[in-house]
């Protein structure tokens, strides 16, 4: 048999129709199409404009609220709470998670409690948190922190446990002490997992802050959305939802960027 290959290249690289440019156009057009359909159906009276006000009306309300600064104020309040609550939960979660990952004894001591407390929906402990911390800022930080803590703890511990034993052997043969092992092996080795935990925790934090503000607050986006509902200002409610969506979208972009910067070695395979 005689095989001759003059030049070969994978077919995908050829581009053309169905290529990257088309993909991009489709993903810009599809949401615009949805908005257009929504607007049209609303104008034609085919959907109830009281529940689904046309996008143009929502945009108008959004612009007015943004101009008056009202929406800003609630946004900043919520963001402040979620960031503080997140840090209160994530930092101890990170430290304990690493210690749990490294020490069998600590793991044995904490596992039953973590196992029992983690599955409780954190929204269910809001009444308890209100009793303990009152209706002020404390209870908002606490509910966010309670959700963040477990996710960061569990993912960090799993990350440390998943570190290849040979890396710890390298540390030992080169004389790394406890603290050095912690900072040069445990933390970086677990970092990809830690980041997974942080992403999940941030998502939960955004849910919990809204829950906390809907039930026990006179400020923040949760309050704003709930208050708009109670006064039947549906457009305002949608404006609040848009801000939540933007916060989520932008913050995950920031997290992606942070991960690229902090975990530059994550090119090939997860560690």
């Amino acid at each position, binding site marked *: 048999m005689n095989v001759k290959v003059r030049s070969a290249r994978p077919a995908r690289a050829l581009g053309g129709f169905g290529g990257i440019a088309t993909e991009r156009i489709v993903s810009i057009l599809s949401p615009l199409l949805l908005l257009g359909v929504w607007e049209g159906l609303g104008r034609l009276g085919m959907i109830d404009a009281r529940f689904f006000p046309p996008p143009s009306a929502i945009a108008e309300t959004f612009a007015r609220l943004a101009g008056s600064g009202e929406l800003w104020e609630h946004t900043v309040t919520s963001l402040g709470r979620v960031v503080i609550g997140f840090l209160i939960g994530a930092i101890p979660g990170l430290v304990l998670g690493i210690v749990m990952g490294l020490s069998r004894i600590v793991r044995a001591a904490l596992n039953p409690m973590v196992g029992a407390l983690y599955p409780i929906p954190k929204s269910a402990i809001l009444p308890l948190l209100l009793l303990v911390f009152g209706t002020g800022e404390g209870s908002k930080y606490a509910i966010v922190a309670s959700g963040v803590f477990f996710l960061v703890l569990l993912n960090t511990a799993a990350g440390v446990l998943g570190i290849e034993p040979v890396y710890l052997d390298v540390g*030992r*043969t080169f004389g790394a002490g406890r603290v050095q092992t912690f900072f040069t092996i445990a933390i970086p080795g677990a970092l990809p997992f830690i980041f997974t935990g942080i992403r999940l925790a941030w998502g939960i934090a955004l849910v919990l802050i809204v829950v906390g503000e809907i039930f026990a607050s006179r400020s923040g986006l949760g309050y704003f959305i709930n208050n708009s509902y109670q006064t039947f200002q549906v457009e305002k409610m949608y404006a609040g939802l848009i801000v939540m969506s933007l916060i989520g979208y932008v913050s995950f972009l920031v997290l992606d960027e942070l991960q690229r910067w902090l975990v530059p070695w994550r090119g090939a395979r997860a560690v």
Partner: protein
Amino acid sequence: MRFELRGRPLVALEDVNLQVRDREFCCIVGPSGCGKSTFLRILAGLERQSAGELEIDVRDPRRPAVAMVFQEQSIFPWMTVEDNVGYGLRMRGVHANVRRGIVAHYLEKVGLTAFARAYPHQLSGGMKQRASVARAFATDPEILLMDEPFASVDEQTRSLLQEELLRVWETDRKTVVYITHSIDEALILGDRVVVMSARPGHVKAEIDVGLARPRSVYELKSTPEFAELVARVWEPLRREVLMSYGALAS
């Protein structure tokens, strides 16, 4: 050296009597599971022996007793190549300026200077093992322990890595204990080849290699002396390998 295996003590090593001379390249060959890796891990301080004594004559307390090159990929994926090579020095508190010089020296010796700032995932398997060798040499240990460091790279790369290791070692002679499956490799690199028995491992035979240095991997393999040495190592090893397969009754 005893381990518990499902309640039954498993004797991994028995009466391993071995003296490694200063600046000697000592290769240990033996059948799979004979405990040679365990022996190396004891030397490295990663396992403790249940009985017996281990003595490492440390002449210079400022130098570490051992450094190890592991079989598997062991350079940290989260550090650049230069940070990996400097890791042992950093753990010993060597000042960053001094460290930089030593790291640059060994990077050059293993041909990784251009990859100093690269992360391991950008490197081939052979390059990772070169970084691992450089990391061990850089700490200037009394004894260099190597556990089949080139077992997982392809044949051609392995020959290149052996050449390179010889070149580095011949200019910077350290005491080396090198574990391998390969008789060829043991003879190419070593001053002495120690044959270990099937489990429980003990020293079965010792063969002085006596080939002149500097050695060249390819030329060496085609000499009649080399063939004769292979036969001398294979003779005691053969029985042990068969026994570890269960082909011969003990």
